[in-house]
């Protein structure tokens, strides 16, 4: 059996605080495998953002431009948090599943890492509820990182106490 090496890992992040955990898990994997990392943030509808922000008690976003800056900041922040300079970052706009799969294809990644809190992503990507055609073309494995709140013991991912979102 031939070993197919994992050279490039796509880490899909959103504004959820647990994204940091996802990023770290993905980064740990990349480090262990000596793989390159592509950090992806998919921008969603403004409505959803305001909801997320409200939850976090963060800023008001007045325009799409602000949103873009915030997204970029978030990603850069995650990058710093991972303490790694050789990471590529991408911000995409549109449907989660489509954007993730598009980016995965474009960047020719071998694994997609996402958080389980993004059940919407999981459903869409795995089940292809929205994106059947994209899914059928996808042959990329998914690494789903458990990010639920009651998750106490995790041997895989180090605990995250500080959230970069607060620095934005």
């Amino acid at each position: 059996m031939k070993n197919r090496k994992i050279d490039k890992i796509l880490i899909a992040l959103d504004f959820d605080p647990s994204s940091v955990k996802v990023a770290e898990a993905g980064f740990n994997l990349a480090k262990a495998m000596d793989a390159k990392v592509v950090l992806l943030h998919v921008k969603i509808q403004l409505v959803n953002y305001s909801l997320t922000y409200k939850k976090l008690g963060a800023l008001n976003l007045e325009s799409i431009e602000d949103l873009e800056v915030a997204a970029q900041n978030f990603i850069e922040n995650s990058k710093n948090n991972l303490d790694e300079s050789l990471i590529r970052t991408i911000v995409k706009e549109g449907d989660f599943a489509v954007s993730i799969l598009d980016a995965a294809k474009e960047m020719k990644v071998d694994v997609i890492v996402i958080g389980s809190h993004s059940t919407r992503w999981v459903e869409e990507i795995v089940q292809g509820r929205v994106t059947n055609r994209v899914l059928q073309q996808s042959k990329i494995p998914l690494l789903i990182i458990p990010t639920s709140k009651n998750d106490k013991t995790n041997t895989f991912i180090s605990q995250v106490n500080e959230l970069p979102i607060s620095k934005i």
Partner: protein
Amino acid sequence: MKTNKIKKVLIALDYDETSQKVAKAGLSLAKTLNAEIILLHVISEQPVYYSAYSYMVEYKVEFVEDLKISIQKFLEKAKNHMGDESIKTILKEGEVAETILKTAKELNVDVIVMGSHSRKWLDDIVMGSAAKDVLKKTTVPLFIVPTKKQVE
């Protein structure tokens, strides 16, 4: 940042053509990480069978025993194919998602590797109504290998 390595990989195989792909991806992952491999197959409890075969219980038992033997062989074959003597093989019976998670916990694995569309596993683990529940409960990352049949 503390780096917690993946030391133990649980590969859940279904008894069908998807298993090769899943095994391959799991092996690749484990080998790159230099991790220990455990192959697992869960014989699904099929309540339908019970009702259907309730009048021929003996047959049913025989069937399961036969199935166990062939699956044990199948796991051994997969192991040999992977060319690693240190690989452990486990055969369990029960509700698939639950049993996978239980085994993962018992063995303290760092990642579970499984196919996306082997029978209804993913429906059980990620999708179904119980699914989100299970995914919420798991503390083990899931590595999902796409095994959906390509539609031309």
